[in-house]
């Protein structure tokens, strides 16, 4: 009995550590121990959203606007299929807001030229990062940043690999950027 309690405490402690790492736009994150979220969870619907996000990201890295548009359409579908009912009320509201906005971004991406797709990808990346903060993910993710993106205002994106492949500048400057934080440190 107490072993399980110890284990839970350890996991929730590392959970708290992980969440400290995600700095931007997460100022209002509260640790709600009544819901005891594990980090390396497998929420298949969240993973489906992430998979489509990464497909989109890779398309932008390769300057492939058509592929990016297709990924945008796929992402709209996986966002629609996402279920929020297993989360607490506060998280449900936040997730609903995230999905609503992310869907709009994905829709724009599915029908725009590449410059616009990249503009919307910036906001989409914020939405998906905020989603992962609530749902957790089974993989290690790298939050990366390029200060030259978006006309010098800078922009973030999520990546499955530590290696920098820039979706905002594409082939013009593929390695511009740095890792800012890691989700699920390996």
């Amino acid at each position, binding site marked *: 009995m107490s072993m399980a309690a110890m284990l839970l405490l350890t996991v929730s402690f590392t959970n708290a550590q992980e969440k400290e790492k995600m700095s931007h736009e997460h100022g209002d994150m509260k640790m709600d121990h009544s819901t005891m979220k594990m980090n390396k969870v497998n929420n298949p619907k969240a993973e489906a959203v992430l998979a489509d996000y990464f497909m989109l990201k890779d398309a932008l890295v390769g300057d492939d606007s058509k592929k990016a548009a297709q990924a945008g359409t796929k992402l709209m579908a996986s966002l629609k299929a996402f279920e929020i009912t297993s989360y607490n009320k506060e998280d449900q509201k936040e997730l609903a807001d995230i999905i609503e*906005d992310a869907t709009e971004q994905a829709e724009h991406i599915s029908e725009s030229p590449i410059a616009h797709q990249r503009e919307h990808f910036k906001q989409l990346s914020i939405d998906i990062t905020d989603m992962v903060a609530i749902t957790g993910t089974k993989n290690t993710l790298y939050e990366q940043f390029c200060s030259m993106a978006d*006309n010098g205002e800078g922009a973030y994106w999520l990546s499955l690999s530590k290696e920098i492949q820039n979706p905002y500048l594409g082939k013009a400057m593929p390695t511009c950027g740095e890792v800012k934080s890691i989700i699920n440190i390996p």
Partner: protein
Amino acid sequence: MKIVKIIVLVLLVVFVGIQFVPTVHNQSERTPKADFMLVNDVPKDVKNKLQISCYDCHSNNTQYPWYSKIQPGAWFMENHIKNGKEELNFNEWDTYSNRRKKSKLKSIINQIKDDEMPLSSYTLIHRDAKLSENEKKEMIQFMKQLRDSL
């Protein structure tokens, strides 16, 4: 020569015919509580510009000039208004979540910066809706402030 006369006649009939096709009128007397300019403290100059350059397509109340009542002009307008309101409706501003407001503001800033809004087809006819460089700067600055405050 006869063929020209026939073509002209057909065109005339079509032109008169399409005048009878009904169009949806985007007009509303009230300014809802959720309106952008009621909810935010908007400086006078920006307010004016928003009204003249943006609100026709991005609100529930369009100012219809005489030529917009003639087809096919009315159709084009109707289409613009429908799409515009779907994208962004300033009258419904406060119904958007904070996240969405921020997103919309980013889009507004980008669209004005890139000269994509107001539409050139719109400013061609509504000369006063065109934004000068200064007006663009002012509007962008205000939108940026608002975005950062959310």
